[in-house]
């Protein structure tokens, strides 16, 4: 090789060396995106079971006493796919004076998602959907919880962080607090594309149903 070729090669190597990858702190909080219009859906039936795990400042939420379920729907006749998260931590704050739920937050490692199908789990964690390697944590944090019109009915407002986006969401929930134990069921529908989960929309609908229940343990759905 000529000297010119060697010089060009060495320059290229130095250029590559200067492009050393930065550690990917994927756990870093995602930058907040512009808030979207609130998402509002109807309430789900009330849960029967209650449980209580008291920690400082509120009730601790985990898969042993709560469930976060998501339902994806195909655009064709294929059946809906139901999944849950088997690992998450959160807190629910209750005002002892009024026995009212005042705040709720939950952090979800998205790699803990579980459906009845192992290959589907891997696909959902891939960049096609949750991109769990890049965005390992989803988060919900309430900003306000207001009493609804009917007894036990509440309207939960909060911020949902998924992938790189944080969006305002609103959903109705049935809430009951008795002796410090909390029961809650809520249902919301999000548009995944608003969070940047915008791939394969031709096969899987944009709308994802999310069912939240506090007071019953997480159960991984079984294949039908």
């Amino acid at each position: 090789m000529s000297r010119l070729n060697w010089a060009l090669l060495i320059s290229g190597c130095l250029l590559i060396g200067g492009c050393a990858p930065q550690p990917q702190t994927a756990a870093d909080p995602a930058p907040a995106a512009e808030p979207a219009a609130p998402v509002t859906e109807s309430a789900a039936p009330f849960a029967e079971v209650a449980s209580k795990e008291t920690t400082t400042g509120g009730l601790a939420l985990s898969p042993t006493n709560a469930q976060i379920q998501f339902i994806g729907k195909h655009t064709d006749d294929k059946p809906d796919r139901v999944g849950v998260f088997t690992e998450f931590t959160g807190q629910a704050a209750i005002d002892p004076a009024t026995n009212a739920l005042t705040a709720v937050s939950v952090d979800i490692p998205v790699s803990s998602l579980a459906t009845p199908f192992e290959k589907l789990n891997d696909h959902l964690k891939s960049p096609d959907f949750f991109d769990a390697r890049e965005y390992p944590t989803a988060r919900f944090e309430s900003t306000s919880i207001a009493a609804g019109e009917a007894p036990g009915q509440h309207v939960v407002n909060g911020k949902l962080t998924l992938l790189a986006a944080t969006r305002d969401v609103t959903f109705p929930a049935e809430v009951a607090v008795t002796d410090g134990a909390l029961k809650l069921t809520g249902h919301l529908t999000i548009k995944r594309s608003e969070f940047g989960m915008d791939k394969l929309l031709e096969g899987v609908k944009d709308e994802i149903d999310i069912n939240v229940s506090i007071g019953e343990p997480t159960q991984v759905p079984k294949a039908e």
Partner: protein
Amino acid sequence: MQADAITEMIGGGVLAPAAIALGVYWLASRLLPGNAASRFPVVIGLLAGFVSGYVLLPEWAALKPARHWHWLPWLGLVAGFTGGIGVRAGPLSRWLLFLATSVAAAWLLVPTWPNLDPPRFIWLIALSAGLCVLIGLTDSLPPRFGGRLVLGLLSITAVAVAVTIAACVSVTYARIAGVAACSLGGVWGAACLRRRDDELAVRAAVPAACIIVGGIAFVACVESERPQYGLLLLPAAPLGLWICQTRTLRQLSGRTATALRIACVAIPLLAAAAVSYARIL
């Protein structure tokens, strides 16, 4: 699947890179001066097709690298450059070039995830060595089997990588592999149309083809928490041609020899795809 989605995927991911690769190859082979025309048309066509196809992908395929696999087009360009200048170098210089290219590719492609398994430094060594051997052994194939056959088998291998990634890991990564496959297919088509066996030009493109196809296979392999090692076997399928170098098989000629050579690549390719899909490794 909606018609517009199919149109977008085929137009952006298949037709465009193939047509650009074919057109640029044709132009380069006609416009470049003699010495360069014997070395660069395939690699220029391949990279023009791949980079333009990559740019035509949706915004998640960024040219400004924010994620490890965003380096693929840049690494392709570097590998194309080293392939172009190395093709007339001696064996030692060429292997050193392959090693430098492979180390650079591994350095940029191996993610820095804290939960990467096995750890990053092991992947750095393994990927560097793997890519270097893959490039080095593939580089020796065109003089023995002809440039067009090797180019065709590289194209088929890239198609198999794309299909297997789509079936096993992610359509996102599969589309990148698909762009690479179509670019390779474009230059292969152009080489067939010209009826010229550009052995030297194909050798110049081997590092770029191996880095791009091997790189995306690696990216898909480590995406899952449980790496899908079977995917790493796919880009090595063209090395099956070396079986045809055994004394008995080397004496074959004509269609029988061609069929045997294709089989020597196709069978390992199908086996690797099956291993990946069944998650045997």
